[in-house]
């Protein structure tokens, strides 16, 4: 799959932003006044920034409101509905804390639930696609949720929880990579099933329909990052988990240290998301004798 920058930025930023909102929502002693303002500003900026970025790859962003209509069938539509609900509820909760120093606990819990539900709907946009076996697993949701919760804990200053959750996320990431590497072959789709000619012998592509790459090949057959997969996986893991852990363990927890750990974590998640798209093989590639 073509790793569109807008989608990588979107899933990375709004994932961690929604994770942070969830932690703020369940905080028994939430910040109030200016402290609350800065905390919520950061979480909202990440989430909303990500959501806005996601509209950049649309052919017609001016019609984006229509995407709220099909929540009964479409995970993308559900994501839109959930994200607005989460932001609205958390907005009210934040207003209570910032202006009245009054935590309205039920709102916080509902908002936290909606925030995580939004991350889940995002993951399901990818996990629902049978055409991309690497994504088509519940593990994709586990990966997205664990990263959002771990990153959110880090940003919310819950360093103890963050350290444990980073390890959980690392485990989810490793298992997802391992399962993903054999997912396409396990599904059993090849040129034989794609053309229906497999029982007659070996099928190979002789000629593409056109002499130069088309939309389908640009969108679905992406090879550049795959060349360096193992190196990129190690870089992602180091930035996403190892370095933040080292920083949190070695240095005293203050705002600067947490920001440093979070920046490293974000860069790691972005690298992992780049691989998430670039490594994904779509069944269309079969028709072109490629992956």
């Amino acid at each position, binding site marked *: *799959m073509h790793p569109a920058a807008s989608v990588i930025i979107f899933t990375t930023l709004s994932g961690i932003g929604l994770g942070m909102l969830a932690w703020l929502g369940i905080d028994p002693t939430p910040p109030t006044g200016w402290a609350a303002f800065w905390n919520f500003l950061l979480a909202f900026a990440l989430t909303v920034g990500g959501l806005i970025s996601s509209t950049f*790859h*649309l*052919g*017609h*962003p001016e*019609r*984006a409101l*229509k*995407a*709220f*209509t*099909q929540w*009964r*069938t*479409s*995970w*993308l*539509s559900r994501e*839109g509905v959930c994200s607005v609900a989460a932001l609205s509820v958390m907005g009210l909760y934040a207003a209570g804390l910032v202006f009245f120093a009054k935590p309205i606990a039920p709102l916080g819990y509902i908002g936290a639930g909606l925030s995580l539900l939004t991350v889940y709907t995002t993951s399901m*946009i990818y996990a*629902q*696609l*049978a*055409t*991309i076996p690497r994504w088509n697993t519940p593990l994709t949701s586990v990966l997205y949720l664990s990263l959002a919760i771990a990153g959110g804990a880090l940003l919310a200053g819950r360093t103890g929880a963050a350290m444990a959750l980073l390890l959980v996320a690392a485990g989810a990431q490793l298992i997802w990579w391992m399962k993903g590497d054999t997912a396409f072959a396990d*599904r*059993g*789709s090849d*040129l034989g*099933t*794609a*053309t*229906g*000619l497999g029982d*007659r*012998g*070996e*099928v*190979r*592509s*002789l*000629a*593409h*329909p*056109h002499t*130069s*790459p*088309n*939309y*389908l090949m640009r*969108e*679905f057959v992406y090879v550049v990052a795959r060349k360096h997969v193992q190196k990129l996986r190690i870089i992602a893991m180091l930035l996403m988990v190892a370095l933040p852990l080292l920083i949190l363990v070695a240095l005293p927890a203050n705002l600067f240290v947490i920001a440093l750990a979070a920046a490293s974590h974000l860069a790691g998640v972005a690298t992992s998301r780049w691989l998430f798209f670039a490594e994904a093989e*779509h*069944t*269309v590639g079969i*028709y*072109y004798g490629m992956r």
Partner: protein
Amino acid sequence: MTDLPTTTDKKLGLVIDLDTCVGCHACVISCKGWNTENYGAPLSDQRPYGEEPMGTFLNRVHSYEVKAEGQAAQTVHFPKSCLHCENAPCVTVCPTGASYKRKEDGIVLVNEQSCIGCGLCAWACPYGARELDQEEGVMKKCTLCVDRIYNENLPEEDRQPACVRTCPAGARHFGDFADPESNVSILTAERGGMDLMPELDTAPVNKYLPPRLKDSFDDESILAPFLDPVAEETQGFMGWLDKQLSRLPGDTKTQSEDV
């Protein structure tokens, strides 16, 4: 709503005969020609005369080679367009309701006024039947020439998809699969029409007829007996002429004498 209809009254679709397709790409051209100036946004081209030209096509013809152990390789031309699946995964993923499957005839269409160009339906389609037009930013796909098949302004013989109408090899057939007596249902039953990637449970309406098995090198040719010389000896006037000419010197030596 982008719910799929549980059943459709008709199941309009195509039968594509891989045995007779000659790979001429006429269906590709007639499809682009008709659909660029009729239903919806035109099918744009990018850099048509420059480097790496690309464009939107609703139908593309691949070419494959099938090679069985100990047999001659066979070339199969393979036209591919939307299969108008009964379990169309492209429809349910659409966030705006732009993609839909019609209850009356099963055709899968895109309402381009509602399409936001997110591309998720193209991701959900296993066959690469949907292409995002790079100029218009909306999703394009085969409409089964919905603006031809019901069009009473056209002569009756033209009320079929442009690709079917133009195919010089008669490799494409259009009809209603819900009717067991239709041409496409009979062809599918007789020739073992098959689904593409059945393991993905998309239940495609379009069917592909497999190529007929070819002769092998070891087969006894049924034409061989007819190749025997009919008359061993020349007779009549030509026989006399042959004899007289053979008497004269200067005949070219036959190969057997040469060796």
